[in-house]
């Protein structure tokens, strides 16, 4: 790097000039935007090395188990900086999502020391944590010798950070004072509306702001556009059908999955009058305006149908709408975004999915692995990913506050930043943390399939589900 460029970038990193001055200055020196970003990234890597001995594990190697994902791509694009910063070597295996969690389960249940850290979802740690397969990361976060003083743990969005922490007691509040930090948030997804603005305009439909309006808008959008369906939501026989739009709307209407008694016992709460009313509307929405093959729809079909112009909107992960608005998708550039509160009160409380990083209890060198963990979840890498790659949604407030990131998103993804800002305060995991999470939510999805197929009336189906849930909770000693 030439001295003039270097001093400009260093001044920016020290906060002595703003972004516009930096761009202007680099432009005057003939540096392109891409070149400028690279210089900035290098300077930031040098800056984070200032107050912490990143080289304390130099020469060591760690191995990661990763899911094929844009977050992974962003990390790999920046990995050389980590290696340069720490003198460590990093190897990894990457698997597609279809088989990824099978690999994780196989590695952890066999107590394999092959992988030091891996990607996970917060829900999975409700199994991994109590089983003793992952560590409580608080031990490292709170240790000033092991963690960079600039790591700024509380910069992580509170709802996201707390959603990765659980005390292991069934029904225990997420993020409580006695909670173990089973994973470190990396990137996350809120569940809101992504819609095809042209299709809604053509059908004369306003963006819905309540569940009733959503049903009406989906039906109108479908009838007002030929050959499409109104709304995409997941429907496969999987827990993953429950956690996105479905639970976000359910929770926003004040419904819960499980009751917790004063003595800590759990019982089903899916068959209340309010829950039955909600299910009736949700089922009607799918029957009237959902995909014909809804019961096989995973996140993939929900996203790609929006991108291909086969659906007018989706109530699912916001990043699906983000990715479908670019690349080779037929509808690229035609999608827009809106926060959604099913109750109509204008305060969204989306359930969230958090791609997180966790250290395996069976790692042979947890301290060295933590070096990678804190770098990958740190502000500098977050900024790199958000500005230059598709590392959305970041989990740090400082990254969301970054003007360069906000400008980029606002320019190409209309409404996305506002949607996030409005929803973030209420965004958290809305499920009750307990070890039977996957069994109960998968059964919930199977019941939903039966109700949509009219195999069972809604009230009866929910009563049956509640009976089954109660029985399983009792058998497991939780109810």
């Amino acid at each position, binding site marked *: 790097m030439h001295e003039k460029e270097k001093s400009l970038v260093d001044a920016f990193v020290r906060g002595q000039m703003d972004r516009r001055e930096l761009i202007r200055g680099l432009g005057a020196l003939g540096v392109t935007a891409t070149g400028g970003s690279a210089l900035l990234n290098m300077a930031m890597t040098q800056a984070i090395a200032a107050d912490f001995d990143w080289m304390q594990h130099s020469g060591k190697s760690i191995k990661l188990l990763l899911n094929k994902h844009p977050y992974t791509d962003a990390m790999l694009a920046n990995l050389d900086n980590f290696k340069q910063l720490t003198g460590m070597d990093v190897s990894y295996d990457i698997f597609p999502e279809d088989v990824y*969690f*099978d690999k994780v*389960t196989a590695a952890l*249940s066999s107590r394999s020391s092959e992988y030091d850290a891996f990607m996970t979802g917060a829900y999975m740690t409700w*199994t991994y944590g109590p*089983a003793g397969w992952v560590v409580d990361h608080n031990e490292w976060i709170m240790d000033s010798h092991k963690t960079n003083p600039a790591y700024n743990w509380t910069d992580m969005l509170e709802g996201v950070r707390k959603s990765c922490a659980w005390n292991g007691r069934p029904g225990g509040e997420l993020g409580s004072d006695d909670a173990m930090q089973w994973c470190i948030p990396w990137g996350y997804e809120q569940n809101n509306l992504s819609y095809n603005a042209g299709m809604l305009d053509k059908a004369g439909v306003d963006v819905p702001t309540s569940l009733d309006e959503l049903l009406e808008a989906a039906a109108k959008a479908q009838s007002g556009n030929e*050959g499409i369906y109104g709304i995409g939501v997941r*429907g*496969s*026989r*999987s*827990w993953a059908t429950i956690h996105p739009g479905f639970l976000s709307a359910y929770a926003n209407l004040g419904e819960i999955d499980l009751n917790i008694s004063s003595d800590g016992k759990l019982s089903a709460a899916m068959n209340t009058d309010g829950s039955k009313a909600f299910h009736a509307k949700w089922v009607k929405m799918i029957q009237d305006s959902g*995909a*014909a*093959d*809804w*019961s*096989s729809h995973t996140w993939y079909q929900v996203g790609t149908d929006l991108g291909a112009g*086969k659906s007018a909107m989706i109530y699912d992960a916001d990043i699906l709408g983000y990715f479908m608005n670019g690349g080779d998708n037929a509808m690229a550039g035609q999608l827009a975004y809106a926060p959604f509160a099913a109750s109509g009160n204008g305060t969204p409380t989306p359930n969230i999915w958090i791609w997180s990083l966790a250290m395996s209890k069976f790692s042979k060198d947890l301290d060295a692995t933590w070096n990678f963990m804190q770098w990958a979840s740190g502000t500098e890498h977050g900024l790199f990913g958000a500005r230059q790659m598709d590392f959305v949604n970041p989990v740090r407030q400082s990254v969301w506050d970054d003007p360069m990131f906000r400008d980029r998103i606002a320019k190409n993804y209309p409404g996305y930043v506002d949607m996030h800002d409005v929803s973030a305060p209420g965004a958290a995991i809305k499920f009750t943390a307990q070890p*039977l999470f*996957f*069994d109960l939510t*998968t059964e919930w*999805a*199977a*019941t939903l*399939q*039966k109700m*949509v*197929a009219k*195999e069972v009336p809604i009230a009866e189906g929910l009563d049956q589900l509640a009976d089954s849930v109660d029985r399983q909770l009792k*058998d497991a000693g939780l109810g």
Partner: protein
Amino acid sequence: MNWGENYVNFLSDPDFWNTLQVSLVYAGLTVVLELLLGLGMALLLVRRTRLNNFISVMLLMPLMTAPALAALMFKLMTNPNFGILSYFMQVLGFENFRWGSDPSTALLTVLMVDIWVYTPFMMILLLAGLRSLPTQPFEAAALDGVPRWQQFWRITLPMLMPYVLTASLFRLLDSIQQFDIIYALTQGGPGDTLMVFQVEAYLNFFQSTNIGRSTALLIILWAITFVLSNLFIKNWLRLRERARGEI
């Protein structure tokens, strides 16, 4: 959980009985349908001509396709937006035919894939059996003026029975352990419509991390397979002895 508790729990677990029923129905239907179709095709191709040899080789092509890939192919063909099978159903007057998404047609959909993949297996074994039968009994029956259908029932079928049993046994053992076609198409749904042993065990292990229940399910599946294969083998030995005129 105490040793053996999973097995005791199965007795009062409606999900287990549903899994047992679905697995047996699926295995029974696939074996019977593939046997009938395979036998029909083998009978049509039994004469050794160049055309028949060519057709029998071509009919083996689906067997070269991995079942999971076949399931994904059919998933595309039954897609309501662009699937060719959905289009044909529309032409036939079945608007909005939902294939694997509807509990009333889900079994039919996975059977269709299984039959497409595995009928050639039945066909090739039975064809080999038919072509290896001695010609003298048929020549004698023809001289005596025995009608063709009686020749089939009284000579062909009894002599072919060891082959029928062998082919059926192989298919039964495979079918009752079905996983890839069902999982790729419906994940065991809609509801619990297609929740066979292997899918249930897989979900228990990898999704719920309920390793004990998953293992118990697979042990039960092993026991069913063991009993069925013993029954088949005993019958196969008896029929082979009969075919040799030993009993």
